[in-house]
């Protein structure tokens, strides 16, 4: 058995995409990820705790994220929290999924333009 290539994760499950997006560029803890997803989706997507941690567990097992050892300054931090960050594989998967979605949107626009012309 060989290591799963990034393409094998596509299309990404919706929850995984939301989590990876929250971790892009910044480490986050569980509550932070939940809040970030809620805000980004205008309150439409709420990752409930068991769903969120179930997904985090799978993402760790698949090597897309890891628990981070870095912690913010103590005055900005809650010592109980665990922070997570993207791995290079997670970053690659997120980039590929972004490209896939971009291509889909482009195809959709092209189709709309074609319909408008005819």
């Amino acid at each position, binding site marked *: 058995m060989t290591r799963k290539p990034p393409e094998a994760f596509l299309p990404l499950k919706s929850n995984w995409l939301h989590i990876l997006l929250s971790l892009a560029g910044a480490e986050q803890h*569980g509550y932070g990820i939940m809040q970030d997803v809620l805000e980004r989706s205008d309150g439409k997507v709420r990752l*409930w705790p068991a769903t969120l941690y179930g997904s985090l567990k799978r993402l760790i097992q698949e090597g897309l994220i890891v*628990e981070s050892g870095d912690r913010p300054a103590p005055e900005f931090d809650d010592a109980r929290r665990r922070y997570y960050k993207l791995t290079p594989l997670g970053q690659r998967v997120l980039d590929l999924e972004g490209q896939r979605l971009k291509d889909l949107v482009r195809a959709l626009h092209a189709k709309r333009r074609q319909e408008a012309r005819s």
Partner: protein
Amino acid sequence: MNRVNRCGRIYRRLARAFPHEFRTICGDGLEQLGEDLMPVVWRDQGVAGITRLLADLAMRLPLEYFSTWAGRLKELTMTSDLFEGTWRANIDKSQWDPLHTPEQARITLEATATGYLMVAYGIKDGQAVAERPSPIIVDGRRRPIVDLNGRPIAGVPPGAMAFGSRPDPQTIEGGAEVDGKTLGKRTLRVSEDGKTLTVTVEGTGIKGPFKTVAVFDRVEPDPYVPFG
């Protein structure tokens, strides 16, 4: 508020009922998140929100047990652990760092509940040398680097953390870092036929950067397994 407290107790009980493997990876994050969320959900969504919160937990619980049992079943049906055993260095095929070149080297890997216990020993400059037994825990978490009794290790910088993961069944990755800066990385990869183990170690030591790619052949039968 009494109702929220009662629901909080139910939530905690459910969260603590999750399988050991889940709790090893996620810690008590699930419990804490519920505690943080309960008053907010009660304020914003009332009974419906609390019901949804508990239902999420109750529905996930059997799924996690199923996933754990499926993993165990897979392990049981495997002929043997890929990494476990004794491995002898193939000096000719290996590319040792000039400062860390042994005449002979062996490692033994013993499976534990959380990963492996590794013992490395060999002959260098005509003398027998052995490394301290080190646990390899492959759950993606950071842990302080201490000896098997939980005591600090001489020469290890304060605050140093070890991490390990198993991106696929044939690969173990790990390393050490201090203050977010990586000190060294190690990859162990078993070949398709399970007979060769390639260990790549790179990092920065007291004498500067180093890199070693050591190739090991499986020792069969394993001298440390009676009747193996």
